């Protein structure tokens, strides 16, 4: 039985906001325990940390956050998995979950006891918290892709925001003929599979997929070849910035922020960077967004990205850590961060918040667009070989983009052969 309500919930209700669903366990059974959290560097998680005092007050549990930049996060988690014992709660990106299975402990009973509504998480995010039928983590940070565009440049070129990839090419050419900006910023370089994230949408849109039902690669099918040829053709058609062959995601984002590109298909969380005066030359009026373009005649798709938080196997305070997870994944905490006028945080993983009128009013309907995209998004099944598969695939795309390889079919066949040969 849970009687204690957190101080945050009281404060929120005083302001007429949504009441926190999370409640501290009666009797503060974990008082005096310390939960050490290893989180990827993110302003969203820093916003959580800024509010953690209320959790500490309600439970008597101390929470200590350590942040690691994204490029070093996998190594930090690997060290924790092998050496163990330093952290009780860790943030893990979806692609790494299976390969880090030795790190995470089942949390199902503890989360169920807290009454967390798992049905509020979109399926595409929630699936990454499940491993071998057991709940090992809860989504806290999740992304869909949107197409951001320069409203002023599109207007000057007399084009509307593109709804299909073909319309996007047409719009890019029109923009380039009327301005100095490149049509669209895309990542083709190698870094944690970033060049696959847009390519995957073309692959799905053309009717292809990565693997067949038997688990064998099928991305080298006719659909896969067509998708890859289309993706690489944007370089040959010169509608992307010079040097895009080595652009990673941040290079593409920088190109857009510096006014050098007119369109940018990317994760929605980037929104807050695009008009940040300290990082960008753009004003809010200049930046618009729409759903990611669809392939002509096909349904819209979006690749998703999810960060789950889980409890480590080596933790000595698993129950306290699970209680912390219950607080951390409370939709009311997420809503409070989304609506905080001092912050510019757009990330949400609860359908209740994605469809919330007040949230959508603040962010111009972006969350409803994300909810629509997530309604049909299934997410990708990442096996324990995914890091290697992603490297082989991203290398193939990079080789084709740089001209190191020119035969798309041969490059994809070689990648399929290399993936099939993984021991």
């Amino acid at each position, binding site marked *: 039985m849970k009687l204690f309500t957190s101080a945050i919930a009281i404060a929120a209700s005083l302001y007429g906001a949504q009441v926190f669903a999370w409640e501290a366990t009666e009797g503060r059974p974990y008082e005096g325990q310390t939960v050490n959290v290893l989180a990827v560097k993110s302003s969203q998680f820093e916003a959580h940390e800024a509010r953690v005092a209320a959790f500490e007050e309600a439970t008597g549990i101390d929470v200590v956050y350590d942040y690691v930049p994204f490029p070093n996060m*996998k190594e930090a988690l690997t060290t924790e998995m*092998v050496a*163990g014992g330093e952290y009780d709660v860790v943030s893990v990106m979806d692609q790494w979950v299976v390969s880090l299975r030795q790190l995470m402990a089942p949390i199902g009973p503890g989360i169920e006891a807290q009454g967390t509504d798992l049905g509020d998480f979109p399926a595409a995010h929630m699936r990454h918290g499940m491993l071998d039928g057991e709940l090992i983590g809860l989504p806290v940070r999740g992304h869909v892709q949107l197409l951001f565009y320069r409203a002023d440049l599109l207007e000057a070129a007399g084009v509307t925001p593109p709804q299909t990839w073909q319309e996007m090419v047409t719009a890019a050419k029109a923009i380039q003929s009327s301005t100095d900006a490149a049509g669209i910023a895309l990542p083709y370089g190698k870094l944690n599979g970033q060049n696959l994230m847009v390519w995957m949408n073309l692959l799905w849109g053309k009717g292809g997929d990565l693997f067949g039902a038997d688990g064998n690669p099928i991305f080298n099918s006719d659909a896969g070849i067509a998708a890859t040829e289309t993706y690489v053709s944007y370089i040959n058609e010169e509608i992307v910035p*010079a040097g*895009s062959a*080595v652009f990673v995601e941040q290079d593409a984002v920088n190109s857009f922020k510096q006014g*050098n590109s007119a369109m940018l298909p990317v994760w929605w969380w980037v929104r807050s960077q695009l008009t940040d005066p300290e990082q960008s030359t753009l004003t809010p009026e200049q930046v618009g967004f729409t759903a990611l373009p669809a392939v002509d005649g096909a349904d819209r798709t979006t690749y998703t990205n999810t960060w789950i938080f889980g409890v480590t196997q080596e933790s000595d305070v698993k129950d306290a850590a699970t209680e912390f997870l219950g607080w951390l994944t409370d939709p009311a905490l997420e809503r409070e961060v989304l609506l905080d006028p001092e912050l510019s945080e757009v990330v949400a993983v609860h359908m209740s918040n994605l469809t919330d009128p007040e949230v959508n009013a603040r962010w111009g309907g972006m969350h409803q667009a994300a909810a629509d995209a997530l309604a049909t998004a299934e997410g990708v099944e990442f096996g324990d*070989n995914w890091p290697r598969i992603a490297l082989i695939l991203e290398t193939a795309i990079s080789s084709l983009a740089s001209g*190191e390889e020119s035969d798309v079919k041969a490059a994809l066949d070689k990648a399929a052969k290399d993936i099939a040969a993984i*021991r």
Partner: protein
Amino acid sequence: MKDRLLPYWLLIPAFIIVLATTIYPLAYSFITSFRDWDLTESRRPGGFVGVENYAYAASESAFLNSLWVTTVFVVTSVILTVILAVALALLLRRTGPMHTFTRIILILPFAMSPALIGVSYRFMFNPEFGVLAQGLGAVFPALQGVPWLADPLLAMGILVLTDVWHWTPYMTFMCLGGLASIPRETEEAARIDGASNLRIIFGIILPQMRGVILVMAVLKTIFALKMFDQVVTLTGGGPGTSTETLAYFIFNVGFRWFDMGYASALAWILTAIMMFISIWYVRMLLSERKMATA
């Protein structure tokens, strides 16, 4: 008796540190190289698989590619660094305020972190706002808009450039040390006999510098074989696999694919290559000394 044992007692702390930080990890990784250890399945090494990991390496195209990339990188990097270091040392061996100032400035690249060098050059060669990319384009219009890091050959060239830029100062100082040990009398005698500067350099100075140059070459070769930091921060091994060095490939196998047995085998292949080169150089060095003292 006590006096005789004292040196050994004094050596024990250093020996324990070397044992714990070098010999034990080396021995452990050597044993691991003969085992199957997939970190996604277990935190403990699996069973012994004989030489399977080594045999797999011999048949894997990605490993063979990284071996080729490393060879190209090492050869070009060592040759360029040694030539530049010798040339700079010859220019700087005179004394004077400007030479002292230049020597101080020269050490700055070596003081920089290799990872930071990679990040800096990545920015400087960015085709949109990179200062070097823009500068080269302004001076040579034909180079305007060249996607430097997007071309496999140019990317390798820039990787070599960063390494040469980083190591040349250190090698120059080694060379200056060698030059200081050459007796000036032979050079002065040659000048009195009317020998040209080039003749003095190639006929008198360089032959006496042979030993130092060999040491420089062996050190630079070993450091180049371990090239990792700049690959991570400058090219990520790309475009494609054009700059994927052996050290970077080993990192991927171990810490991205979690195949620790295979990664250990690859690490030992790299170690064996470095040991072979080191022994070969040292034998050459010793035979030179024998000839010199004969």
